[in-house]
């Protein structure tokens, strides 16, 4: 996180022309991995992420929870998804993301409704352009719902951060690389409760409050896209 690169233009807009509190465009689609119990594809700016969900009896037996489901998200990057070719397999960063995404989803799924089950959430990042963990979680939540897994709410996520000293919403790749802070957050929109929160960088208490408020405002719009994706599928299915 270095601050010596100009990230806000003279007209007050960001390098990609967005206002401080403006999101990149988002598209969500379900039913993209036919073999899976549920799936979703999200395009968030230039991010392209596909998620498939399988619900099954946990194996081996002694790994089962007799009274609730286990949720295992696995965040994985394609070799061609980033600037320098990524070697296959998990690394420390992807393992941490898998953990916080698993925990956020677990906080939303009604785990007691699926005793002994494992909900496997396979996340494949085909193209990465900042904010992949939040985009992954947002898509995963749709894929889990698409699989018919009972949820208290659809998890919705977003990032804010600090670039050129200003609080901005939904960091771009440049803002992520050269800004002063990155704050991914995810909530259950019905209650506003936070199920994922990370921060790294340098922010004051006031900046943190500004960033979280900005994200809270953006969440309903993303939440709407999630619901539409699920409805599209079912209305299409009805129409067939």
């Amino acid at each position, binding site marked *: 996180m270095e601050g010596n690169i100009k990230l806000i233009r003279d007209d007050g807009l960001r390098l990609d022309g967005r206002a401080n509190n403006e999101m990149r465009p988002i598209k969500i689609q379900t039913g*993209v*991995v*036919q*073999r*899976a119990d549920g*799936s979703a594809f999200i395009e968030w700016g*230039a991010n*392209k992420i*596909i*998620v*498939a969900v*399988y619900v*099954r*009896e*946990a*194996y*081996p037996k002694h790994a089962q929870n007799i009274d609730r489901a286990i949720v295992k998200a*696995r965040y*994985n990057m*394609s*070799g*061609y*998804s*980033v*600037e*320098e*070719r990524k070697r*296959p*397999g*998990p690394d420390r960063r992807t393992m941490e993301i898998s953990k916080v995404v698993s925990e956020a989803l677990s906080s939303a799924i009604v785990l007691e409704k699926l005793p002994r089950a*494992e909900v*496997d959430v*396979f996340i*494949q990042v*085909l*193209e*990465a*352009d900042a904010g992949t963990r939040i985009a992954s979680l947002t898509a995963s939540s749709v894929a889990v719902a698409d699989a018919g897994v009972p949820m208290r709410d659809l998890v919705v996520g977003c990032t804010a951060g600090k670039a050129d000293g200003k609080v901005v919403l939904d960091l771009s790749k440049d803002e992520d690389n050269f800004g002063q802070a990155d704050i991914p957050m995810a909530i259950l929109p019905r209650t506003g409760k936070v199920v994922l929160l990370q921060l790294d960088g340098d922010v004051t208490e006031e900046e943190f409050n500004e960033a979280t408020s900005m994200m809270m405002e953006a969440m309903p719009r993303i939440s709407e896209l999630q619901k539409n994706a699920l409805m599209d599928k079912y209305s299409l299915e009805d129409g067939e």
Partner: protein
Amino acid sequence: MVSKMPMDASAVLSEIRKGFILESIKTGKRLDGRSLDDYREIKITENFVPKAAGSAMVEIGKTKVVAGIKVEEGDPFEDSPDSGVMALNIELLPMAFPTFESGPPSEQAIEYSRVVDRGIRESKMVDTSKLVIESGKRVWMIFVDIDVLNYDGNIIDAATLAAVTALKNTVVPASKIGQKDYALPINATPVSITMAKIGDELVCDPDLEEEQVSNGRITVTISEDHNIHAMQKGDIGEFSLDEIRKAIKTSSNIGNKLRETYLR
């Protein structure tokens, strides 16, 4: 990692369903209406991953793969100082099928990768002599990564199509080293044709159910010179020499059609 619910992929197919498939193929028609030589619908999305040096999503029926290319500087092999390097890898992602697992590639993934790689390499599709930055010291390395997102049979042909399409739209980022970017130099357009032996018939582009009832698979990779550059008999089963020779003829015909339709 062990699979969640240990199961033999073939176990999911009921004996009755197997019977239907076999009976139908005897009559020269397949359950989905295809004739024995027909491919399922093929959909190709070029440049699916704009950040990659080249890319393509290929769908054959419900089988879905993405190939992406990265071109990076690297060292040549000691025994070929004047040649760039290509490495190709297929990942059978666990999202694509219930028994596919995370972790190091399975024998199946490795076999598929190597068959696709041989077809491309031996047809001399990529002119690696034009990927040298400094003889013996520095060359371009072409990483071809192919992810299988949904598995419904015939990965090899889908992966070959995706890799060939992606290579054809690949740009070498020579501007990084102060030269001009240039299109990856391409000499040939290989196509692989995979057939399954079902009963006494050879069936092109088997879907998953057909793979599950088949006794052996055969792949032939042919380029526009009509020469054979790779062959692979796979799975448990056997072929007569006549069947193999017939497979070559079929491949030659169908390969040409696929090339003209999808790889211009």
